[in-house]
């Protein structure tokens, strides 16, 4: 025991460690007295250590479990019932405990020497702690700090206001476009409207294309993408009251123009039967005639 003490003595510097050592010493005393109670006269140091370790583990486990049960019910201090449930869970019959406590041959152990309990760093107190409402007995633990239970979301809820959404979408798009065109203008050739300041209002230099009609006539990929999306979401659009046209009769007239939009799907078999001279195979040349 002394050795253990001395063994640890060097390290004892902080009050927290002192505290723990004192506890452990008490546990050793308990183990020793229990051994004496059971009729042992002496014990090896190692055995005592092992038994101390075991009892410490057991107590720690009881404490941990009790704590878990209490937290499970949203409390912070375990109550008696927590301990009981824990012991039961660990296979200990609680009913035997009072008898055991009153046994005749028990030894009384002196209280562990008073050591300064380690200073628990004070938690930041934010706001006023709530007092118990009337239906909660006063013995129940106090409410924790408000910040521990008041909801403080870390993200903003999406804004659902139509105007703001539109506003945002518009300025976002504008920003992207502006940044993109500025970038393009900075990295490529530009034309300018002003002679004094060529950087103001830079225009991306035009570039003649060999086949200008292609880009001018074919829809851009973006547009094609939009087209696909709107095709799938067309039904949604019609339920959107914000955008439905005021004039329901207009659709009918429009359909005249739109009617042509759908090419009838000619069946494959039918297509093979189309006799069009441009689809016929090219003939092999005839035998060369004499000239």
């Amino acid at each position, binding site marked *: 025991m002394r050795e253990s003490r001395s063994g640890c003595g060097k390290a004892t510097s902080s009050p927290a460690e002192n505290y723990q050592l004192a506890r452990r010493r008490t546990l050793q005393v308990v183990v020793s007295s229990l051994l004496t109670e059971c009729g042992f006269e002496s014990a090896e140091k190692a055995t005592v250590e092992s038994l101390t370790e075991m009892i410490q583990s057991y107590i720690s486990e009881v404490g941990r479990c009790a704590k878990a049960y209490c937290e499970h019910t949203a409390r912070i201090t375990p109550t008696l019932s927590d301990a009981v449930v824990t012991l039961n869970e660990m296979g200990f019959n609680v009913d035997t405990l009072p008898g055991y406590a009153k046994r005749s041959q028990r030894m009384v152990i002196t209280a562990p020497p008073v050591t300064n309990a380690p200073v628990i760093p004070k938690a930041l107190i934010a706001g006023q702690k709530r007092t118990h409402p009337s239906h909660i007995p006063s013995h129940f633990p106090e409410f924790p700090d408000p910040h521990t239970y008041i909801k403080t979301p870390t993200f903003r809820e999406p804004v659902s206001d139509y105007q703001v959404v539109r506003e945002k979408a518009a300025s976002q798009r504008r920003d992207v476009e502006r940044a993109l065109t500025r970038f393009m203008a900075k990295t490529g050739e530009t034309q300018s409207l002003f002679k004094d300041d060529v950087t103001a209002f830079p225009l991306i230099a035009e570039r003649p294309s060999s086949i200008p009609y292609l880009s001018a006539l074919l829809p851009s990929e973006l547009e094609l993408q939009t087209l696909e999306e*709107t095709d799938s979401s067309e039904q949604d659009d019609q339920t959107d009251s914000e955008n439905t046209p*005021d*004039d329901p009769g207009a659709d009918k007239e429009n359909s005249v123009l739109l009617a*042509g939009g759908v090419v009838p799907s000619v069946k494959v078999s039918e297509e093979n039967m189309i006799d069009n001279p441009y689809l*016929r195979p090219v003939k092999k*040349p005839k035998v060369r005639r004499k000239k």
Partner: protein
Amino acid sequence: MHEVKMNRKKDKGFESPRPFKLTHQVVCINNINFQRKSVIGFVELTIFPTVVNLNRIKLNSKQCRIYRVRVNDLEAPFIYNDPTLEVCHHESKQRNLNYFSSAYTAAVSAVDPDAGHGELVIKVPSELWKQGDEMNVLKVYIEFSLDQPKGGLHFVVPDVEGSMAERGAHVFSFGYQNSTRFWFPCVDSYSELCTWKLEFTVDASMVAVSCGDLVETVYTHDMRKKTFHYVLPIPTAASNISLSVGPFEILVDPYMHEVTHFCLPQLLPLLKHSMSYLHEIFEFYEEILTCRYPYSCFKTVFVDEAYVQVSSYASMSIFSTNLLHSAMIIDQTPLTRQCLAQALAQQFFGCFISRMSWADEWVLKGISGYIYGLYLKKTFGVNQYRHWIKEELDKMVEYELKMGGVLLHPTFGGGKDKDNPTPHLHFSIKHPHTLSWKYYKMFQCKAHLVMRLIENRISMEFMLQVFNKLLSLASTASSQKYQSHMWSQMLVSTHSFLKSISNVSGKDIGPLIKQWVDQSAVVKFFGSFAFNRKRNVLELEIRQDYTSSGTQKYVGPIKVTVQELDGSFNHTLQIEENSLKHDIPCHSKSRRNKKKKIPLMNGEEVDMDLSAMDADSPLLWIRIDPDMSILRKVEFEQADFMWQYQLRYERDVVAQEESILALEKFPTPASRLALTDILEQDQCFYKVRQGACFCLAKIANSMMSTWTGPPAMKSLFTRMFCCKSCPNIVKTNTFISFQSYFLQKTMPVAMAQLRDIQNLCPKDVLNFILDLIKYNDNRKNKFSDNYYRAELIDALTNSLTPAISISNEVRTVDNLNGDVRLILEEITRSLNMEKLLPSYRNTITVSCLRAIRMLQKNGHIPSDPSLFKSYAEYGHFVDVRVAALEAVVDYTRVDRSSVELQWLLNMVQNDPAHYIRHKILSMLGKNPPFTKAAESPLCNEALVDQLWKLMNSGTSHDWRLRCDAVNLYYTLFGLTRPSCLPLPELGLVLNLKEKKAVLNPTIKPEQGLDTTEMTGNTMGVHIPVMGFTSSLDEGLITMETVSSVSMSSGVAPPPQGLKRKLDSVVGPLGSSSPEPGQVLQEEDTSKKFKIRFNTVEEDEIDMESPHDSQAFIHHHLNILERPSTPGKEPPAVDQAVLSLPVTPLPSSFGKESTSSSKHSGDHHHHHHHHEHKKKKKKKHKHKHKHKHESKDKERDSHAFSNSPASGRSVRSPSMSD
């Protein structure tokens, strides 16, 4: 001869101007080289002589290089002369447009196929003459090539990597009216019909699309090319033959398998969508005409750099590729369908049914335009149709009042100048090729309007019966063999058309035809009225203006519609010589029965608020000629409330549009209310509502001081198009209702025209527009918003007002106005985004360019054309180029920049795209850098020379362009000698024609003013020239045959300026001195000019007579030195390998003949010339000792020393002075 007579009898009036009849033609193009832009081929014409001893065959051919001509396998000599290459040769200093126009008309007449003339004259070998008696068939075989053709065929060869097919290279034929002669020799007349066999050998990756049925496609032996064989069994004029070759994508129409569509690579999805409607147009026409489409197949080809948007040829049409669009595009859809409908209408009338002569053109254009109108009515509705008719009528009336009349059916009495039916015009309307393009457009416009008038007269049912009759006659005729002489039934003439009408309808439409067809000009009415309460009579006064230009007097019925309280009543009044006033009894008393509904014309009964009306009068509104059954302009006076009632309650869109126009003059709250109500009414035709927007803007500006409430249209727009929860934000786009879409596009543009007291666009409005741009959201839209966004940019442009300029400070970024800065930012961003995500047809770029020009013009940013010039370069989309060019043209005018003017004119000469060249000239004409009325530093001698050269010889490959150049010249300098030219040495000369003394229009020729146009002719070796003696008494023909010498420089184009020597005519003028006799002499010459034209028309060209000294000498030399038989033709070499350059001989007999001695009877002087020309010249020189004596000498010496042909072509430039 029997046959011929029978033929003519059956033809009912059609007499061929030719001594032969064409029955069949083979065109074989066996090599098309895209790299070098050249074409090699041959044609074979089968002709039946209709006279004994057919010794000459005149054909049309321009710019083709002819290698050999054989008639029935015998080599035939030929002459190739194109007087239109260079119109005025000799008098380099003659610069007046009158002179040019008559010379140009003469040149066109000289080769006019309708008069039996042609550029190519082939001498029939004498061995074949006897066959003429037996009326045997002659087969004329002509080998030819084209090298970098400037007209007729257009090559589009994009400059990218890959094979020609991968690059999308293609070629197609084009032209204005009969222009087929540009790409193969033919009889280029709409009245000479024959059957066709067409063969085109092209690269295996290409498709050749042409007229008729594709019979077969055969690989060549090396399998690298294939030959397309077409047969066109329906007799067709050469002018209706076309070709396009390219790596086309092929789409067989899913509804009609005999219809095939072709487009350039990658555009197939657009083609599919754009063509999905064509079958309905087919059905429509076939139904109304009760006649099947006449050809067995139809092809549509979409090409880049098209000459016009739509051109129709027999069984095929060539369109601009820019008409193609995807399903997302709204605005282009109706336009493309209209183009298709026009093309198809012309298939029936124009291609299948052709015309007898140019004077009958109006019938074809009229019918095709008319049935196209019926299509419009059926597809786009009556409102659209009536709106279109009004638009066309207004356009035409405006043109006629400005420029003088448009004459549909010109008749020319003997071709004398005095009989010119349109003296008010600066061009001749005798030929399609001398017409101004704008005139031709108005001509077409008038033609279909007149058809509509005829319909009004005889009913549509009869009208369609007439068309059906024409078509069935033609289709019977088309299936006949040539020998049956029925083919001329396929030609329509004014006479036959009118006869048909009277047969079918039994009505006499003579007066109508006389008024609108045989006579030009329109009617201008002024109407006003008074209500006589005592008599309950409406006193209507209708006056006419028939004295100002472009107007004529109208006598006959006119319909007047009066809307009274008790209903609408039609009255037909007779416009007579001296009656101005007409009394119309009213049906209703001016009582006020407020509870009663008011019946309208269409039977509808409506409630009206009658408080605005005059208490004493039952009249709500009055309309004069509501059905537009007179080609007229009406200016009618009625009170503002009447116009307002008319706008609100008259159901005819034309009436609504008229009242909108009238209300501009009545800026009152009541007008404002009426317009706003119309704007809100969604049953109202959308174009009327669009018109109301602009009118409202104008009214608001006039009412500026008393205007209450938000800026006009703002709250309306907000209510219609903005979100209900947040009125400053526009709804996300859907464009489901097209009416709303068009209104949404228009309103901001109109609003931007609003001005406040400082004459600025109100801040509210500008911010409003900027917000529209900002909040525009198209993500959920299945349509593209490119047109909408473009119009928003246009709105920004409209909002611009002139910058307040403190001094003439340089425009800098720093002193940019805040609002303008915002606008400029939007424009910059939009323009830049276009580079990354181009919009359809680059509409946004177009609008941005216009906006930038407007910013420059208003002094917000420095005026600078360089940006526009870069966008105008070849390689941009055509709409962008046109917009940029428009800005440059505007800059040229505002800044009087000669650099830019030169740049533009340079582009006119060199740009690859014909449409752009045409557009530049017409824009310059519309927005001229200066006019004849004003002084300008730009107006100088060099410019006059340059433009003169442009129209004289620089535009000979394109009729339209030449006429554009003439128009511009007219706009800039007028008809007479440009004022900026130095005065000629001769002060005044007598112009006997106008009976007054005028400034001498000519100037002494100067030496050394050599226009080296001939440098194009780089051939080193010149051509053996042969002559042959004619056994007739005509003398000699100088002739030109093929040089077989192959040389590297052989690709040189034929000399463009075939210089003629008009010495005979103008010689004395050239060396004129201020003697009294000189004046006389000039007079004389001008008369000679006239005769010249006569001769050309009246008789066949007298090409053999020696007209000037040189020709004379040449002939003699030829006779002496050259064998007369053409049989010594060098052997033909493989055409594919060698290019065989030929210089068409500039013999130019066409004009020289004019001074031939045959017609010298009445002109002594003239006669004199011929016989003693050479002497006379010398005499002159001697007399006056002019400085150009040496040159004349040189000329003479040439005559003797040179090889005749080479001598000519080499010397001609200098001689032209």
